[in-house]
């Protein structure tokens, strides 16, 4: 009886520690500017900074069913040199966490390759892909790319 209760309590309190947020799995971009976030309602990005021709712009926060998505883009002239996810879904849902951990890098690679926001949806990560795309769009519009 006691063993059963202990085993049950153990199972229910089993909350494995994930390797922090999926954002950490992306390459560390050298922060070149301040980050300011905006609401979806504004639908525009704010906060950009310039360092020697390189500009860093933060996209709008896109709320999806599984959580918020927000990206930060670094452009040099008209070239996208880096994309970083500031927020991806997964804070309170293990499935979203796992999806973000593989969809994040894939979306970044797609954006760098396409040099625009016309990127494909990652299978199994429809919501995240759409949010990523939309946030990227606002950042790029701000950058004038």
């Amino acid at each position: 009886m006691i063993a059963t209760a202990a085993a049950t309590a153990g199972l229910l309190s089993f909350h494995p520690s994930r390797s922090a947020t999926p954002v950490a799995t992306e390459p560390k971009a050298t922060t070149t500017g301040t980050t300011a976030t905006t609401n979806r309602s504004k639908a525009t990005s704010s906060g950009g900074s310039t360092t020697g021709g390189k500009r860093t712009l933060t996209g709008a926060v896109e709320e999806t069913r599984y959580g918020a998505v927000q990206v930060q883009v670094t452009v040099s002239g008209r070239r996208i040199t880096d994309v970083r996810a500031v927020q991806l879904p997964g804070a309170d849902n293990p499935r979203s966490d796992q999806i973000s951990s593989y969809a994040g890098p894939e979306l970044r690679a797609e954006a760098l390759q396409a040099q625009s926001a016309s990127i494909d949806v990652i299978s199994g990560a429809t919501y995240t892909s759409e949010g990523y795309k939309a946030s990227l769009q606002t950042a790029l519009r701000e950058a004038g790319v």
Partner: protein
Amino acid sequence: MTEHAIAAELHVRPRGRRAAARPNPALANAMASLAGAGLGLTLLLTISTERLSSLGNRGELVVFLGRLAGMAGAYAMIVLVLLVARLPVIERVAGQDRLVAWHRRLGPWPLYLVAAHGVLITLGYAAQARTGAAAELWTLLTTYPGVLAGTAAFGLLIGAGVSSYRRIRRRLAYETWWAVHLYTYLALFLAFSHQVANGQPFVGHPVARAIWTAMWVGAAAAILAYRVGVPLVRTLVHRPVVESVQCDGPDVVSIIVRGRALDRLPVSGGQFLQWRVLRRALWWHAHPYSLSSLPRNGRLRLTVKAVGDHSRALARVAPGTRLAIEGPYGAFTRDALRGDRVLLVGAGVGITPVRALLEDLPAGVDADVIVRASSDRELVLRDEIRAWSQRRGARLHELVGPRAQVPLHRDALLALVPDVAVGDVYVCGPDGFMTRIAHSAVSAGADPARVHFERFEF
């Protein structure tokens, strides 16, 4: 109470006695429709929170089917436990023997569905993450809170399923089977925690989560109320105690039970209760025994064939021993009658509920009674059956002798009861006997829907 005393009481009209609540087939049908609607709702919750346009994406269809299997399996678990939750509405219409049979037949389905759920989700997620199935399974078990609990629940359910498999159950002590089966409640609790923690249909859908939670909480409340609450209250109200035990044939004993206001126990002739002997090493084991006479003067009687450990222990139980009751249960009552012509058939110890049913028949019902035993000594409660048949104006047929000498085929039945086709037939006895009688009655023209059984061999 001696036979003489009972016979003397035949002419005493019992006052204040309560019959079991009348069965309400319309309500039972409504419950069945509700169960169907629940399945529809479950699948709808799953489908409506899925984006169908993304089903073409890699792995998504497999994941979707895995979710459907998981949700359907979880819903099947609810239905499965509610079937045996002793809900009076369905219990009075379908009868517990039939409900247990459905529970057994449906039993493997949650296991199949949950197994499919585990396999499909692992494969689908692996495809989406572009990893192997084993790696994905490891990720699921170690990084998804709730998946380990769900897996443990599945293990417990498999234990219950395997130990209920006919061949294995026969080798197990009842105690073992019961303990393993009791763990399914823990399994359901763990399964529910897994569903709300990991269920993708519920992420970002508080309404879906609320509906789902309400279904589970409702089922848990019904189980607690009818499997624990009502029996506890009835036991505390009536305080049944063994008054005396008497031998009524080879290995057959009658137990007179005395209690507070037992006449007020809502029971009909032909029903049974689950009995627990409140003594160390016996209390946790409930057994079904039919009443062999309706409650009167604060007493009722059950007649038991001492074949198992429990019934043997019951035969030796000392007067004054406290009992706990669950029930009454069973649809083998006068409420199943559809006309005023009836044939009651009892064999061996199956004669006992027939005896109580005979006592409880409505006035104006024209009855034939067949009692069957292989020897005179095994014809239990013979004098009472005779007295009650006489009082009810019923024709009594006592069939005694070895099987070869007592045919029960269609023509033999027709010779005894020429108009068996026009009435209701009630049969209680060993499974083989009931099958033979039912077959003879139906081939003689009886309506299969009007042949009623009480199965002893659960």
